[in-house]
């Protein structure tokens, strides 16, 4: 059966999305074909509005509707503490976890294999923010993987000599998980990042 050109065009467009293969693209396309008119209209409008309505905050480099973003301009947040993350979606995760300070979004991680160097990230903007003097603590929350480790070390190097406390989030056994389900990398990280228990021992 020949596929109508309009359907083939949609399948092709969907296939360009990350993680979407031919079969998933076809399933989504057939779903949209049968969906109510309002639903497809809403999706199409949302896609078209996306690039006009989303800007990058020039302070924290997160995606936002305004510049500065609503987080950077919120007087109730702790402006002296910065959480450094790789991607805007990490901001969403830490917002859900209840972080009350501000963010700095690197827009990637250092990976020469992918052609990304430290200068391609928003690292110099971070140094500028910190050397402005209003930041007292920087917490590095890059991913606990090879590129995240490299990126964290580049951040530490870039902030060397600045009057701020720099730390990296702990890593190890996931809360709510169990030792027996943790892999050896998680367990060795958890051992390396152990904390003292108040009142225990000497």
């Amino acid at each position, binding site marked *: 059966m020949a596929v109508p050109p309009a359907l083939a065009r949609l399948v092709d467009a969907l296939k360009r999305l990350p993680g979407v293969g031919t079969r998933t693209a076809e399933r989504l396309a057939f779903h949209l074909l049968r969906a109510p008119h309002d639903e497809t209209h809403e999706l199409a409008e949302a896609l078209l509005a996306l690039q006009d309505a989303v800007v990058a905050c020039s302070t924290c480099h997160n995606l936002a509707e305004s510049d500065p973003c609503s987080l950077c301009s919120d007087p109730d947040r702790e402006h002296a503490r910065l959480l450094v993350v790789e991607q805007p979606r990490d901001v969403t995760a830490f917002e859900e976890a209840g972080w009350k300070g501000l963010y700095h979004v690197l827009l990637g991680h250092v990976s020469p294999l992918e052609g990304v160097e430290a200068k391609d990230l928003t690292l110099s903007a971070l140094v500028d923010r910190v050397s402005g003097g209003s930041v007292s603590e920087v917490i590095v929350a890059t991913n606990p*993987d090879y590129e995240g480790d490299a990126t964290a070390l580049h951040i530490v*190097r870039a902030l060397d000599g600045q009057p701020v406390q720099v730390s990296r989030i702990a890593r190890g056994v996931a809360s709510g998980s169990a030792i027996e*389900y943790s892999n050896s*990398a998680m367990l060795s990280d958890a051992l390396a990042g152990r904390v003292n228990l108040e009142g225990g021992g000497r």
Partner: protein
Amino acid sequence: MGRVTTEALALRRTPFGETSQIAEFLTRSHGRLSVILKGVHRPRARKGGGVDLLDHSMLTWFSRRNSRAMPQLVERRVLSHHPKLRANVELLQIGEFLVELLRTLTPEDQPVPRVFDLAVATLQALEAGPPSQALGPIVLAAQGGILRLGGFEPVLDRCVVCERRPEAHRMLRCDPGRGGIVCAGCREGRDDSFLLSTTAAEGLRRLARTDPRELEGVALPAELENSMRRASERLLVQVLERQLRCRVPLRERVA
């Protein structure tokens, strides 16, 4: 292939769907091979969690005979995650350089036990926390050894054309395009050759035959090491037919 268990180093990983991953490994018994790891990002994944770059693990996968479908992970036990290497920028960059070499110079689906063992030995040498002057020799041993075992070794102990051996303590001309040393009698007008001392040429040859773990206490004279590194980079670019993405991160040593 059926069910296969072998040692592996992770060279690449790509997210697949919400909870799965596709990873390319250098395996000891099957060369480079991509494996699908289903559900490894689920909170209670039992197969050892997501793969990280250069993880050294014991891998078991399953693939149907005569099927073109990607092999599936059955079990993975991490042997080393290289914690010391991962706490140092230079070592991390050398690790990425090693990944690029292995991605480019190893075959798919063929046993490569000696290249594999050399890669593991290199990681162990780095993980042991060698003094900084040993890093250059370790990198040269890894690079030279991988080229040699892959059949890409330049000819450095005699003229590529007439096979005459050079006298000691001489300056030689090395022509990457012709695969090594070319004597004065065999040079053809203008070429892309560069000067290389017999000591540097012999040093490169010997390092390509040395276990990187034995180099912890080695320190080369700075000028000699710099010339060996420049030469080996030009020889490597000739083999790869392109510049490396991961430049060897070591700074030129000062005498």
